[in-house]
């Protein structure tokens, strides 16, 4: 809980929730930041966090039988609409501005995932490599980021509860990652500098500190870090952090942590999930669910919240090499076998790679090197062709561009209320529905009225 909120006696308006799929392969992580001026913001953020942590796992289930595509974006949009409807039921009316909150969520599995974002707060993810030199190092690379979106002014942002939320929904697909960090706006002050660039020294220090702490005490460690005077000085807001460390970190033995920033620039808006390699449907992946630590819940209302979670999966994860290598060996074996069995396929007559040349053909093979038709298997493990039939063993690429057409919300769901109450705030769609960041545009805030100028409509 931020110092500002302790002072004013408002409850912590941040919420977080995490979920893990039944097969232990996928993890959903959500934080949500309620707006300070919204009367029931904490209810809003809690509902958003809870629903998304559950529903995102449905995507994981569907990915067992369905290729990643635009349907994922549609699914996310459907869940946003679903949450908004739930909030309407809670409110007992169509206007849900009392629940104004942001959405900072992620679904991640063994081969990649998504960052889902409305408003401020931040998501950072990346890979980790072990560097063994004079000093043992864990080299963290930041590869993806979903930045806070504030509009022009620092004290404005966008909410899932606004009428034109869809203009500010950002879905970013990410490749395989070994770690993620989610933070609400308050937490951003610590993990970001200039409110958008990752603060590499801070992240470094935080991960180092975490890894030096026994697993059971890690949530407390984050809480303590978020509660330090330095942290309070940077932001007096509620701060919530989720740090998710993959199985690779289990080998950590006092390594130094080094973080570099190699962010893949992502475009704003909703992107087609092309980055996730297709899961081979013929061979369902069996990744063990070892290395899961239970989510340590930070203390409830009244304290900064944090959680650590391990990404399921062993270090040797499913990728091209683990599938293709055995297949490759089989192919070579079969080839050699057929040669041994008097070459019924007349393979000798084909001009093939000299490395696979057979008895007495050594010189001939060397001459055929120039006109070899097949590329060397070790150079290009992805494609092995023999002259007879092209057997393409690469994973078929997802090449269709799935553009989600953003339909402008022209329904009049909020128009009535908006026109009545927001007479001064015209059609400016950038700002949040309740402009409370500064004194309101009417002069009532300057009148001798010490009570909170309420704009509840």
């Amino acid at each position, binding site marked *: 809980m931020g110092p500002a909120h302790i002072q004013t006696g408002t409850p912590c308006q941040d919420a977080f929730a995490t979920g893990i799929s039944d097969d232990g392969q996928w993890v959903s992580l959500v934080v949500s930041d*309620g*707006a300070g001026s919204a009367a029931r913001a904490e209810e809003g953020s809690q509902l958003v966090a809870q629903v998304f942590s559950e529903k995102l796992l449905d995507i994981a289930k569907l990915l067992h039988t369905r290729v990643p595509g635009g349907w994922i974006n549609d699914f996310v949009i459907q869940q946003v609409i679903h949450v908004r409807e739930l909030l309407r039921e809670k409110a007992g009316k169509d206007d849900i501005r009392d629940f104004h909150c942001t959405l900072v969520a992620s679904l991640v599995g063994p081969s990649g995932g998504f960052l889902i974002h409305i408003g401020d707060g931040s998501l950072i993810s990346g890979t980790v490599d072990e560097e063994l030199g004079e000093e043992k190092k864990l080299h963290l690379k930041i590869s993806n980021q979903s930045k806070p979106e504030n509009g022009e002014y620092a*004290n404005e942002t966008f909410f899932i509860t606004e009428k034109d939320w869809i203009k500010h929904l950002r879905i970013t697909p990410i490749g395989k990652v070994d770690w993620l960090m989610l933070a609400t706006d308050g937490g951003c002050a610590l993990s970001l500098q200039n409110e958008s660039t990752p603060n590499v020294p801070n992240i470094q220090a935080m991960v180092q500190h975490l890894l030096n702490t026994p697993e059971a005490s890690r949530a407390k460690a984050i809480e303590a870090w978020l509660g330090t005077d330095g942290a309070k000085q940077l932001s007096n807001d509620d701060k919530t952090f989720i740090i998710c460390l993959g199985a690779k970190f289990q080998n950590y033995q006092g390594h130094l942590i080094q973080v570099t920033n190699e962010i893949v620039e992502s475009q704003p808006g909703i992107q087609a999930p092309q980055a996730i390699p297709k899961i081979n449907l013929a061979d369902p992946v069996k990744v063990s669910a070892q290395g899961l630590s239970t989510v340590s819940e930070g203390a409830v209302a009244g304290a900064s919240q944090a959680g650590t979670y391990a990404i399921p999966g062993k270090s040797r994860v499913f990728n091209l090499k683990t599938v293709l290598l055995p297949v490759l060996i089989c192919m070579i074996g079969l080839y050699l076998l057929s040669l041994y069995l008097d070459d019924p396929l007349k393979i000798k007559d084909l001009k093939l790679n000299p490395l696979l040349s057979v008895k007495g053909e050594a010189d001939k093979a060397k001459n055929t090197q120039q006109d070899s038709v097949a590329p060397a298997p070790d150079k290009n493990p992805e494609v092995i062709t023999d002259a007879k039939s092209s057997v393409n063993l690469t994973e078929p690429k997802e090449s269709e561009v799935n553009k989600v057409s953003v339909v402008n919300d022209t329904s009049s769901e909020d128009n009535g209320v908006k026109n009545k109450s927001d007479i001064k705030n015209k059609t400016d769609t950038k700002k949040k529905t309740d402009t409370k960041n500064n004194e309101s545009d009417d002069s009532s805030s300057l009148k001798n009225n010490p009570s909170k100028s309420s704009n509840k409509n």
Partner: protein
Amino acid sequence: MSGVDYISNPNQRTPCVLVLDTSGSMESQTSSGRTRIQELNLGLEAFHASLQEDPAALTRVQVGIITVGGPSNDASVMMDWTDANYFEPFPLVADGLTPLGEGLRLALAMVEQAKQNLRSSGISYTRPWIMVITDGEPTDDEATWQAAIQECQAAENGRKAEIFMIGVEDANLSMMSQLAKRPPLMLEGMKFKELFVWLSASLSAASRSRPGDNVQLANTDPWRNVGV
């Protein structure tokens, strides 16, 4: 301009430009024995002192000063954008007419310039304030005044800045009210100190506000003349 440092202080900024009437009428004597301009100068010192006592404001507020009138008899930038922790007040001198319209246009230009500089330095900011203090009425030609009205209204509609107008003594409040929706307020007597303490507290609140917050401005009782 060395008044701002975005490297060692990358905090978000709340810029505020003061448009101050330094026309000849500000030389008038007041009941305290000091002239109006002397009272204003004391107010600026109180502003500085108040900022110094507020650690959050010190790192986040940014101040600029435009004088309207004065020995140069024009509207000019007396102090370019300066971070609060570098801001040192200095006495203003009164003389001449009141080209307030010109001063406002200059203020809007300063605000845009501040935003550009902040954006290019990667510093975020809250909506800038323009605080106008005048004791008379504008002496601009009609064209300039009309242009100022247009620009101020556009700025307010476009949410480019928050415009506050404070009238002193003989100020023509009805002319000032043409500029913006927020009605001009009248200063009680010579309570510049109280006004500037209020300004410092309000800027501080704005600079600490987070998305979705209600920025609670300080109470205007200490300085406001409610009879007008």
